[in-house]
């Protein structure tokens, strides 16, 4: 009985020691968000096959409207402004034509709000874009959303020029 109890104690001590190491050790940083490289990945080359040439994705062509992937919003607003409708319509068409392509819409805000309310506002912006794409006929399974609120800002000065760049929803094309 005594032996058992001491054995248990030793076990507890080991557990605590393990807990120790875990506490001190910084948590492994998660992988960075997936870059949208899917379409540009070169085709696998095989020694047998002749070299092949493929078009790069229009998503990466600066002259194509699909190159634009950011929608900007007014202060405290989540409605899509008319100047972004053509761009979003083009993305909707592309997604309908490529039903296996998935995207993530990321919603962001400027810093002029509370952290948690900004999370909700960023979510609302992402949902505005999502609803527009769904209305155009995109399959809901192709679209996921996330709001980072005021985190991950692209500009850190405290002025309107900067804030207007941060109030955004970004279409991120995910690799398969």
């Amino acid at each position, binding site marked *: 009985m005594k032996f058992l109890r001491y054995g248990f104690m030793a076990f507890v001590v080991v557990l605590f020691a393990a807990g120790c190491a875990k*506490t001190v050790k910084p948590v492994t940083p998660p992988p960075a968000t997936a870059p949208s490289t899917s379409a540009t990945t070169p085709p696998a080359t095989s020694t047998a096959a002749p070299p092949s040439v493929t078009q790069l994705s229009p998503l990466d062509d600066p002259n194509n409207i699909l190159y634009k992937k950011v929608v900007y919003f007014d202060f405290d607003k989540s409605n899509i402004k008319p100047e972004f409708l053509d761009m979003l319509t083009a993305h909707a068409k592309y997604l309908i034509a490529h039903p296996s392509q998935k995207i993530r819409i990321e919603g962001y805000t400027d810093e002029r709000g509370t952290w948690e309310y900004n999370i*909700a506002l960023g979510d609302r912006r992402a949902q505005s874009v999502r609803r527009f794409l769904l209305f155009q006929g995109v399959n809901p399974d192709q679209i996921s959303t996330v709001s980072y609120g005021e985190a991950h800002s692209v500009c*850190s000065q405290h002025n309107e020029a900067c804030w207007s760049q941060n109030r955004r929803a970004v279409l991120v094309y995910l690799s398969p």
Partner: protein
Amino acid sequence: MWRRVLLVFGLCMLPIVASHATLEITVTRGVNTAVPVAIVPFGWEVQGPAPSTDVAAVIGADLTRSGRFKAIPDKSMLEKPTQASAINFTNWRILAVNDLVIGRIKPAGSNYQVEFQLFNVYTGQQLLGLSILTTPQGLRWTAHKISDLIYQKLTGQQGAFATRIAYVEISGKGGKDSHYALVVADSDGANPQTVFESSQPIMSPDWSPDGKYIAYVSFESGLPAIYMQDIYTGKRELLSERRGLNSAPAFSPDGKSLAMVLSSSPGNPDIYVMDLATHKLRRITHSEAIDTEPTWSPDGRSLYFTSDRGGSPQIYKVSLSGGAPQRITFDGNYNARSRISPDGKTLAMVHRENGQLRIAVMNLNTGALLTLTDGSLDKSPSFAPNGGMIIYEADYHDRGVLAEVSVDGQVSERLSESQRGVSVYAPVWGPFLSQ
């Protein structure tokens, strides 16, 4: 045997200290009515090196930080007694000092015995005389405990110096190359310890009422999830990783439930309460609007939360036993992220005024609103457990810094990170601790 286990456990708890810059405190607004007190450097009456912690300096800084007292500098003292018999009260009366603290530190094996005495300078009467046994590492914390005892004796209110704060630290400019850390520190910002870190955002930390756990939102997977972490063992529990939002966790006063914000449908954040034993969820709000930032009334029977159901973000209150939410704030077009004082009488919130975000308090009996701060990005108010001060985040030279303001707005100070390129935000003041 148990004792030995506890010792191992104790050793485990202590060294979570990561190397950190400490916070510097600058009083930005003080009151003329602060009572002058003198904390004489404590005596060390044996051979060998004295402890590195200056106990008297810690006590003096604590009392000054409260705004109720002002510790006079050592160099203006005419004498530095360490024993009651050596005090000449005349030397203190001419400095217009009201109260005098003297003390001594003595070795007790590998520990220290800290003795202190509090005197009223005008009557010469001893108001307190106590001896505290402490470990060398516990000396600074003991100084905070002494501050609490002195504060309580002189004001009749419980001190909140021997308490902790938690906050999030971000290095980098806030872009994708940033690094985030959840930090626990003493109430004066000393002894900061990183309890969790990530390359992705950390938000909305909240203390459990026993001060053992912190709930927070982590984006470590790329998506938000709510975790609860034992700050002493580092053990984490994933509480919610649902589709959509997982935001704004808030412990109930009994520590058994956690209010949180989840998406009831895509794009519709609502308030839920999770039973922490069963993880069962109960939906509390049912609007199409944004409902977020829940916080509990001290009796645990209702929640205050932010909603834009009326067109702009305002604070509402909802009873957990049912009934429609009631609007609480009416001043201005942006009132958000409220926190209630421990006595339930005052609601602190972020209030937008001429485009600037400021900390305001509302008297819940009269509905009167008082703006306490004058910054442009003052956010995340959190009451000290004695209700005397509010800690919040402020912008200072383009960095997020921690600041404190007294509930009457008379005293404010900045606790600024001395490390360059580091911003701090989302401070939350922990509860009174039992030891």
